[in-house]
Each structure stands twice: as C-alpha cells, then as structure tokens.
C-alpha cells in the first residue's frame, strides 16, 4: 500500500497522535487490517471528531421522537401506529471527482440509511450547489450531478419530489450535493442497528464486494482538494440502482416476516462499520470470517475487504434458527447473501482471513474511543467591515429588475432539473417540485407529510448565527403553508476546513443558531451530517448548513394551497413584518451587483411563531400561500402569476427584500380576515400583465424569461 517513505497511518489520513492512541488501546502495534479499520472509523466523516463536541447542543427530545441522533436515521411518531424515518447526507467530495457516480451513490446511501430502520423510502429531496454556469467545468458538474440523481433515483424507484439549487463562486471547485430521504413504517416494523444477543448470525446481503470506494470516507471526504484530487477517482464508489431496488424489497420482506434482530447498512467505512457499530451498540463481540464475504474480484486483502465501500450491501443480524429463511428471501429477490459472522459474548471483534486472525480488537473502541477535538474558533474580523459597507442596488425600474432576477438559474424555473426526476411514483405527491414545501399524502389515512429543505450560504456567510436561525424559521413556515405542523429537523452542515479557526467559529455559531431556533419552535433535531474540508486550493466554501424539516398535516387540507390556484379578482396580501430596505445577502445583491455585504435582518422567534400559526390556519381556507424568499415579494408574485396563468397589479415597498417571516396569501375579497399590523394588501390578480409599482410586463415575457433561465445558462 505504501508508495513513498511516509508511514502507512499517515497515508490513511491518521495523525501520529491518533496512531499512538491505537497502540494504547491494543497494547501493541496494530496489524494492517486493524490499522485500516481504525483509520476509516476515526476519519472525520465517520467519527465527527471535529464536530462531536458541539453537536450535543442540539435539542433532540420531544414526546414524538422515537429514535433520535446516533442511529442510521431519525424516527418520529406521526400517529395511528405510523412512524416516519428521515435522514440527510452529503456526497460533496465524490461528486466533484466523478459527478454522476458521486451523486448517484449519494442517493443510494441515504436510501439504505432509511430502509435500514424498517421503513419504505417514499421520497427524496436534493440540495445541490455549484459555481456559476458561465464556467464550462461547473456546467459539466451540474449536468453530471443531475443525471446521476435521475439515473439512480428513477431506476431505484423512489421519487425525487423537491430540493433546491444555488450557484455561487464559492462552490466552483467544491460543489455541494446533499440528499434527504423520508420513509414511513408501521411501528412494529421498526428495526435498529444492533447485533443482538450472543449466538446471532451476521448475514451479508447484496452486491459482491470489490475494490471500489476503498477509503472513500477517509481519503476523499476527510481532506481538502488540490491538484492531486483527480487521481482519487478510484476512491469513488460506483452505484447500481437495480441491485439497490432488489435489496430494498428483500429487506422489507425480511422485516415484514420478522426475520431480523438488527440491521446495519454498509456505507462509509464499509464492513468495518457494519460489524463494529452494531456490536458496540449491543455491547457484544463478533467472530467474522472474511473468506465468506462474496467478492467480485479475487485476491482482495483483509484491509481492502474491511475498507471497501462497494455499494448496495446490508448486514442483517439474525436468530440462528431463521438463517435459512433469510437466505431464501434473498434468493427470491435474486440478491447474493453470505453468512459471515457470529455474535459472541464479551466485546471483542475477532476477524479471520485465509484462516489466520487478522484483527482482534475491542468493538466499541472503533466508535467510543475515536479522537475528539475541540478545535480553536475565532470570529473573523472581516465580518464587521462587511456589515458596515452594505452594497446597495438602486432600483430604477422594478419590471426590468424582476426580469433580470427571473433569468437567474437559481431563481428561474427548476423544470430542467425536476422533469428529469420521477417525482410522482407511489401516487403520494400532492404538492411537488417548484413549491415552498413538498406535500405527500399517506394513503389510507387523513395525514399528509410536508418537507422543506433550505440552505443559504450567503446569509450564513454574513451572519452564521442568524442565517442558520432563519433557515429553521423559513423551513418551518414553508411546511406550515401546506397545512403541516413542524415536527422534526435533520441538518446537513457543509463547511470548509475545521483546522481554520474562522471556519470553526462559523460552525459553532451555526450549531447555536439552529439549536436556538429549533428550541424556540419546539422542534427536535433527530439527525444530521457534517461535511468538513469543503475547500479547494485553500479557499473555503461559505458556511452552508442545510435544514431539512418534516411537518405533519393531520388532517391534510382538503384542497391544499397551490401556486396555480390564483384567479382574476382575488386579492394579494403580504403576511408578516413589513419589509425593510436591507439588501444584505439577497439575490438582488448577487444577480445585479455581484456583491455580498451588509448585515442581514435579524429573525425574531416571537414573530416566527405568530406567522407560522397564521399560515397553519390559512392553509385550510385559502387557495394560494407562498413563502417570500429569494428575490423578495416581486419574484414570489411572479411565480404565482406564472403558475396560475394570470396577471396582477401590485404596489410594493422594497419589492426585492428578503426579510424573514413573510409570506403571500391570495384569496377572494373578504374570504379571510387579515386585519391588524401583521398583514397588508398589496394588490389584485387579473389581466395578462404583471404590474409592479405601475411598471408593466407582459405575462408571456415573465413566463419565457423564467422558464428559459437554466436552459439559457447551459448554452454557455
């Protein structure tokens, strides 16, 4: 494995101090297979060694939380015997090295996290971020990632019902590819990642193990990029959605028949993780025979078998009397299976290869004894100067400015992306892509589940604390707009190099911000993911937390608000505090001024609660509700007009303001009472022109500008 004089542990991404810890735990020098296991399990990606000290601040408890952080996915009670499982993950680094497979295997991985819990995955959301599409490399990455998500998600048979896209210079050379998955299950089908009691048998299910993705977690996702990065291509995993589809169906049949004690998927750190974590959780040990592992190439060494991140594999822990039944189910679904181990008393993992012991170590030490760093955090001085010098865009013609915003690929129609994704499978998609939140019905019940995923690297760059609070408030308002009450959060924290004290400060502020807003709204955080080292050639990305928020509508509104339900004669209202003139961090600054400066408007927990309650009330009575976010009220009104095919005439103070806690409501005069100072009438729906402050645009021009935004940008 060595190609230079560098010690092996450093090549595996391990520091000298960490190597000394391994020697202390074992009381001797590690064997090669043992060193391989510690290196992947103690990688940043698997051990959260730079973030763990802070993640404990998240509020994680509520009466409806069934499984909180620490398992493969969070699980919440949605009533009447139903549970929902949710999880979010990043696949940033692999997607830069190989966009199609990087994005595809990101989808595969998040699905396994969810069906590991006993749930059928019912929907996916992708949050993707790239450098500007004016650069050929960014167009290549963007197209590759979208094809990868489509290629895997469509074929595996789970609809992609929403997501978000953002373009900014800071993601050139470091795209972000996050993916969230939601599953549902009946309470009695819940399965945990435990190895069970001594005597249980470990059955490895799914695709044969190969040399792909070796060290994917430790080599790729736990260090920064430089000129050598393309040589890491062999560390990217390769996906096979057909194998995953069969694996999903086989596992669901195993759960239904009650044939498993516990299940763990093989993702980052592969077999090393899938044997040590369940054993550690159950306080047991295990004998594992690597010769039994089915492989697709011969001559794989023990470290390779233990580190491989070959996709579409699951480890099931089974009662010894039920092994034959488990193998029969695997056989029916035409997936490979192998009995690879047996659970033992005590806490020792004993691993054999070619008849010889290649590893003998305390199972729990791989997780529990992982290094923990409280890294230095320093508030950057440049924040103050950015706050003091807000770059202001002068608006002379609202109509022209609106068209410039609508032509931006992050604001214009997402159809080029979402029409490549099956977003209708399972007949649940009541409100789909291109809306504030997706709304899925649960057939056979009155319930609907809403999900909104929100990130805003620019706001968080200017103020990570308030920026991340605003993400929580916005996501909560988005689900409320569909009639769903916020229930649980998962977060994906995408950051630069944690060894940079300014990045660490951004990270700590973000954890505090999300925690404060989640506490203010009484929403538990049930899981998350941290992606550090999003840095290329020393340039860190903006701090980019992504919040995925699940809401429950019970009952779901009979006709939920939709953007396309506005009709001539209806009134347009703005609900929430009146917009200020701040442009800090706005789309206006980015698109028109290519600037990022100023101090964004502070969110307010009390206002957040009020507008959420109001939205929940209105969702059952009002045809159109729409969050005001990128591009302000002007863009939000344009989106309603486009979807409904009708014009509007409105008067807007600060039409492009993105101040928080605001949404639009459209309804027939007198249909809803919005008196008070938390709402104001903006104008009326009608005609075939969009008129803002007496500046008029033909609706067909609004539509074509918005519709062609991404296709135009892709022509270069």
């Amino acid at each position: 494995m060595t190609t230079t004089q560098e010690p092996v542990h450093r090549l595996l991404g391990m520091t000298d101090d960490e190597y000394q810890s391994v020697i202390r735990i074992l009381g001797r020098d590690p064997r090669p297979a043992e060193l391989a296991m510690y290196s992947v399990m103690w990688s940043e990606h698997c051990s959260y060694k730079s973030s763990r000290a802070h993640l404990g601040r998240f509020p994680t408890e509520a009466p409806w939380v069934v499984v909180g952080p620490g398992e493969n996915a969070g699980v919440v009670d949605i009533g009447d015997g139903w549970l929902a499982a949710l999880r979010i993950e990043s696949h940033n680094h692999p997607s830069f090295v190989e966009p199609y497979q990087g994005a595809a295997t990101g989808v595969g991985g998040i699905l396994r996290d969810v069906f590991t819990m006993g749930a059928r995955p019912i929907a996916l959301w992708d949050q993707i971020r790239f450098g500007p599409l004016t650069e050929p490399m960014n167009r290549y990455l963007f197209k590759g990632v979208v094809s990868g998500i489509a290629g895997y998600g469509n074929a595996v048979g789970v609809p992609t019902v929403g997501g978000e896209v953002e373009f900014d210079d800071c993601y050139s050379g470091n795209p972000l590819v996050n993916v969230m998955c939601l599953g549902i299950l009946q309470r009695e089908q819940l399965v945990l990642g435990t190895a069970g009691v001594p005597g249980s048998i470990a059955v490895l299910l799914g695709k044969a193990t190969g040399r792909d993705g070796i060290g994917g977690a430790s080599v790729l996702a736990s260090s920064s990029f430089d000129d050598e990065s393309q040589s890491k291509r062999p560390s990217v995993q390769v996906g096979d959605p057909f194998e995953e589809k069969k694996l999903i169906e086989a596992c669901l049949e195993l759960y239904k028949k009650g044939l498993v004690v516990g299940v763990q998927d093989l993702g980052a750190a592969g077999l090393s993780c899938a044997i040590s974590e369940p054993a550690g959780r159950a306080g047991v040990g295990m004998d594992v025979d690597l010769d039994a592992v089915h492989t697709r190439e011969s001559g794989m060494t023990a470290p390779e078998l233990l580190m491989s991140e070959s996709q579409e594999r699951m480890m099931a822990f089974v009662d010894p009397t039920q092994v034959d039944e488990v193998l029969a189910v695997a056989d029916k679904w035409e997936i490979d299976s192998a009995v690879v181990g047996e659970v033992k008393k005590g806490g020792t993992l004993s691993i054999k290869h070619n008849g010889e012991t290649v590893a003998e170590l305390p199972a729990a030490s791989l997780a529990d004894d992982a290094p923990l760093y409280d890294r230095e955090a320093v508030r950057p001085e440049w924040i103050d100067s950015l706050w003091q010098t807000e770059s202001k865009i002068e608006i002379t013609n609202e109509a022209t400015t609106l068209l410039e915003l609508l032509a931006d690929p992050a604001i214009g129609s997402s159809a080029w992306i979402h029409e490549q994704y099956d977003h209708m499978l399972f007949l649940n998609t009541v409100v789909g892509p291109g809306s504030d939140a997706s709304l899925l019905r649960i057939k056979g019940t009155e319930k609907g589940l809403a999900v909104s995923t929100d990130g805003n690297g620019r706001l968080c760059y200017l103020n990570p604390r308030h920026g991340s609070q605003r993400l929580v408030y916005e996501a909560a308002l988005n689900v409320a707009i569909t009639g769903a009450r916020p229930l649980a959060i998962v977060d994906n924290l995408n950051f630069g190099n944690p060894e940079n004290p300014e990045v660490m400060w951004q990270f700590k502020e973000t954890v505090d911000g999300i925690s404060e807003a989640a506490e203010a709204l009484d929403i538990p955080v049930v899981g998350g993911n941290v992606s550090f080292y999003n840095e290329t050639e020393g340039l860190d990305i903006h701090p980019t937390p992504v919040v995925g928020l699940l809401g429950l509508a019970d009952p779901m509104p009979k006709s939920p608000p939709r953007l396309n339900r506005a009709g001539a004669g209806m009134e347009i209202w703005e609900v929430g505090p009146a917009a200020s003139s701040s442009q800090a961090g706005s789309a206006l600054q980015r698109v028109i001024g290519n600037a990022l400066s100023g101090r964004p408007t502070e969110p307010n927990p009390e206002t957040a609660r009020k507008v959420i309650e109001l939205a929940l009330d209105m969702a059952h009575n009002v045809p159109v509700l729409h969050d005001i976010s990128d591009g302000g009220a002007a863009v939000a009104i344009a989106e309603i007009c486009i979807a409904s095919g009708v014009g509007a005439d409105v008067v807007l103070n600060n039409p492009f303001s993105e101040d928080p806690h605001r949404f639009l409501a459209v309804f027939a005069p007198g249909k809803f009472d919005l008196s008070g100072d938390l709402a104001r009438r903006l104008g009326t729906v009608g005609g075939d022109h969009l008129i803002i402050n007496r500046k008029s645009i033909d609706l067909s021009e609004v539509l074509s500008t918005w519709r062609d935004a991404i296709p135009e940008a892709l022509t270069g």
Partner: protein
Amino acid sequence: MKTAVIVFPGVNCEHDVVHAIEALGGEADLVWHRETDLSDFDGVILPGGFAHGDALRTGAIARFAPAMDEVIRLAGESRPILGICNGWQMLCESRLLPGAHIANRDMSFICKFVDVEVMDTNSVLTRSAEVGQRLRIPLNSYQGNWVDPTHSGRIVLRYINDPNGSQRQAAAVTNAEGNVVGVMPHPERGTDELLGSIDGNILLESFLHSLVPA
C-alpha cells in the same frame, strides 16, 4: 374478474397500478415473474419501472420470464393485455406489439404531465373514450421514443405536443385485434384530482370493461 399485475425485479409501478385498479372497483393481484400459470386471471397488466435494471435493452430480459410465456398465451386467447411504459417495451420485445423504443429525442428523462388525443377506440385501453377526446396524464420515461419500421402498429393515443420523438407522435399502440396495448404515459398516475388529473380513469375503466370471465 381479476387482473394479474406482473412483478419483475426492478419494476416499481406495480403498487400504484393495483391501487388505481382497486379504486375503480376492479380486482388486481401482484404476480411474481416466475409464475408459470396465469389461467386464474382474466387480463394482465405489465407495470412500469426498470425491469432487470434495463440491462441489454429495456424489457429484453423480462421477455424470457416464465410469466411472459403465459402472457403470450393469454394474448392469443384475446384476453386484455396492457403494458405501461416499461411494460410496453416488454410487449415489443415479446413481439406482441411491433417496433421498439429508443432514447428520447433530447436524450434526457422526462417526468411531466402531457396532453394526448384519443385516435382510435377499438382497443382495450380506449374503448370507453371518444375519438378526438383529449386527456392529460403523466409521462415518465427515458426510452419513450417508439420506432416501428413495419408501420403496422395501430396508434390509439397520440401526443398533442411531441415530447420525445415517438414515431407518428404515438403515445399508445395496439395490435390488429385491439386486445394488446402498449402505452407510454402512466394512466394510473392520472386517477386522483388531488394529484392533478383524473383523465387516466377512462383508460383503466376501458381495460376493466374489456375483461370477460376466463
């Protein structure tokens, strides 16, 4: 009267089809592709998805499943056979319908509502509809571009705006007898107002009305 919905590894619309059939008062059972006897069933639906991961060609491996021998036998007995999306591709591979499918003209997957026009009501998919009737149902495919060098397929649904390059804008094609139909858009996805359309109901009702006791 009972419809068999055949499940191949990799298909994914089987539950949606059963749901839509049952919502219309019909009866449908999921049948594994290794089944060798379909004589209890009055008709067959091959649902959409990615059978065998689209390996080789779409539908190319599914065609050799034991259940397909039965489908071919039932087709010969004039029983209603409907292939949706991937199911149509299987019917072409089985030579029950002419032609084959290639990648969409723009080389990308398309998932969206499309408008189709009923061209011919002499088929188990369209017998309850009227010629000229326009329906809005979702398309969801990468290889929906039908080519038929024999020009023998009878088109029963036509796209109003050509989305994928399909020959003669064909969205659904039947055999001479009208009992075997392949359709690219998904009728089962157009069966609920809450999801945007109920135009698929008339197509599935046509199929259910075509069933006669075995």
